[in-house]
């Protein structure tokens, strides 16, 4: 399963924290590293369609500036010279932003989104905008305007969505880290389906300023990378107060990397892990549930106390979250839809029109459900340090089916386990926990293997605990070193 290598694969798959260390030590040059990343992206993107555009000349110029700062002993920050990319739903000053739409939503962004500005202020070199589901409103990234993003583990399968370009670029070793957005699983689903790590932080932990909205009360910005330590580094850079986003918390940002639990046989001794009964496992395909339970056993072997917990109202969070999403997205797009409905792809247009049929009384009932579900989850999180579930009930599906428009039931199913934590704003992380054969749930008929993700959910603003437990689990499970055949 470990793929052979294209040229430069060893360098391409180094962890972000390791390339950052080598750059800071002068062992690597930003100019050489960025050139290698551009070469790899230009070679593989025609097959993957992870990037909407590779901005090679701009990246080279930024890399030269980065090299000069390092030579002068004045690095901007912990990402100095590191090639990254962001989903094409973030403002990048002076550049277009498509949000996955037929035409750019913004021809020249007035400024950087806050999260983008913080990456660049830390020295990152952005390679170009990454592909996504149209307007981030879908889970396949089968984009009718820019073409489908392909899953590096099986090119005829989708990478999940809506941050599918971010997941695919990471799995293919095109970038060392990426940003995504998550309204109903759009960071965690592609992370799970592409075999990388994705974190939806607590609502309010990362500013959403300069990000095209999908649903205001569900939208989150978060980091994606190939390792937990890389995600911890990125979160520390992008998190924090922002007066331009009224929901951004003023809470100080901890040192997330310091919270990572070192690998070891008793690494999780004393930690309490809650495993919800019912819904989160009953709705998963048997092989996915088996892999998730196997990963939980590994956490137990590391010393964690695994405890069955009950979240009887979590299932109601799925329809409640959908109603909130439908209504808020319809409001976000009301003017554009009225003026230019034909510019939308069929699936997104149908969802937006469906949203216009949600009554105010239904929207408020969903918001009341939000309060009820959050109360229940907070009670359970008083007894355990985190909850653990599968990230998705199924692995990635074929692009042909996705391009035809995933049935509403399929779309709902893929978001079942993720959506409750958008409604409640709790931090949630997806960690690779195994592989299943492509094709059928039992894997007949294909040589390709598809990744499966484990979801860890924590208390509000306690991303440090999630990252710590995930780091120990990652070391024990050993999937971070796997690479797709490309």
């Amino acid at each position, binding site marked *: 399963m470990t793929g052979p290598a294209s040229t430069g694969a060893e360098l391409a798959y180094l962890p972000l924290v390791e390339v950052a260390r080598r750059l800071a030590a002068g062992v690597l040059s930003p100019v050489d590293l960025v050139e290698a990343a551009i070469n790899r992206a230009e070679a593989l993107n025609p097959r993957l369609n992870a990037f909407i555009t590779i901005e090679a000349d701009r990246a080279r110029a930024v890399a030269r500036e980065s090299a000069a700062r390092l030579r002068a002993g004045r690095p901007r920050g912990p990402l100095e010279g590191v090639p990254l990319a962001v989903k094409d739903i973030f403002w990048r000053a002076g550049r277009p932003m498509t949000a996955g739409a037929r035409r750019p939503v913004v021809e020249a962004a007035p400024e950087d989104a806050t999260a983008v500005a913080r990456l660049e202020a830390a020295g990152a070199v952005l390679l170009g905008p990454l592909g996504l589901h149209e307007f981030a409103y879908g889970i396949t990234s089968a984009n009718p305007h820019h073409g489908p993003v392909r899953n590096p583990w099986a090119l005829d399968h989708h990478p999940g969505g809506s941050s599918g370009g971010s997941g695919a670029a990471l799995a293919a070793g095109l970038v060392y880290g990426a940003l995504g957005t998550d309204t109903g699983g759009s960071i965690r689903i592609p992370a799970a389906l592409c075999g990388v790590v994705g974190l939806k932080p*607590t*609502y*309010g932990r990362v500013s959403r300023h300069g990000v095209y909205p999908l649903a205001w*009360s*569900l939208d989150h910005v978060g980091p994606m990378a190939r390792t937990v330590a890389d995600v911890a580094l990125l979160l520390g850079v992008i998190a924090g107060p922002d007066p331009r986003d*009224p*929901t951004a*918390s*003023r*809470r100080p940002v901890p040192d997330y990397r310091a919270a990572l639990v070192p690998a070891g046989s008793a690494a999780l001794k004393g930690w309490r892990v809650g495993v919800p009964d019912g819904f989160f496992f009953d709705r998963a395909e048997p092989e996915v549930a088996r892999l998730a339970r196997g990963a939980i056993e590994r956490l137990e072997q590391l010393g964690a106390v695994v405890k069955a917990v009950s979240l009887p*109202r979590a*299932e*109601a969070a799925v*329809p*409640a979250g*959908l*109603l909130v999403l*439908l209504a808020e997205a319809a409001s976000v797009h009301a003017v554009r839809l009225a003026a230019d409905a034909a510019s939308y792809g069929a699936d997104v247009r*149908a969802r937006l*029109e*469906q949203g*216009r*049929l*949600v009554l105010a009384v*239904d929207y*408020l*009932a*969903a*918001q*009341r*459900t*939000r*309060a*009820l579900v*959050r109360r229940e989850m907070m009670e359970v999180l008083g007894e355990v340090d985190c909850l653990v579930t599968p990230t998705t009930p199924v692995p990635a599906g074929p692009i042909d089916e996705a391009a035809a428009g995933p049935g*509403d039931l399929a779309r709902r199913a893929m978001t079942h386990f993720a959506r409750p934590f*958008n*409604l*409640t*704003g*709790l931090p949630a992380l997806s960690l690779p926990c195994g592989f299943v054969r492509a094709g059928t749930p039992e894997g007949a008929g294909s040589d390709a293997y598809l990744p499966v993700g484990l979801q860890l959910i924590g208390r*509000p*603003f306690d991303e440090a605990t999630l990252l710590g437990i995930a780091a120990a689990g990652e070391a024990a499970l050993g999937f971070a070193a796997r690479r797709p055949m490309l």
Partner: protein
Amino acid sequence: MPDRSLDATATAALLALLGRPMEAAERDRLRAALEQIRDDVRVIAALDLDGVEPEARPLVDPIDDGDGR
């Protein structure tokens, strides 16, 4: 099985919200979408929401509460 039917008048009134002519097939698709919404609402309606007020945001950090934001 739950009753998924919608009163015809209510259906027509809601679909009229879209404010444009529709082919029969599209009308059927939207009616199905509407029924899906009603199914979701029924799930929520089964909860005891008595005394529960709506929350416009997932959460407000206690650090930020009370400063007017």
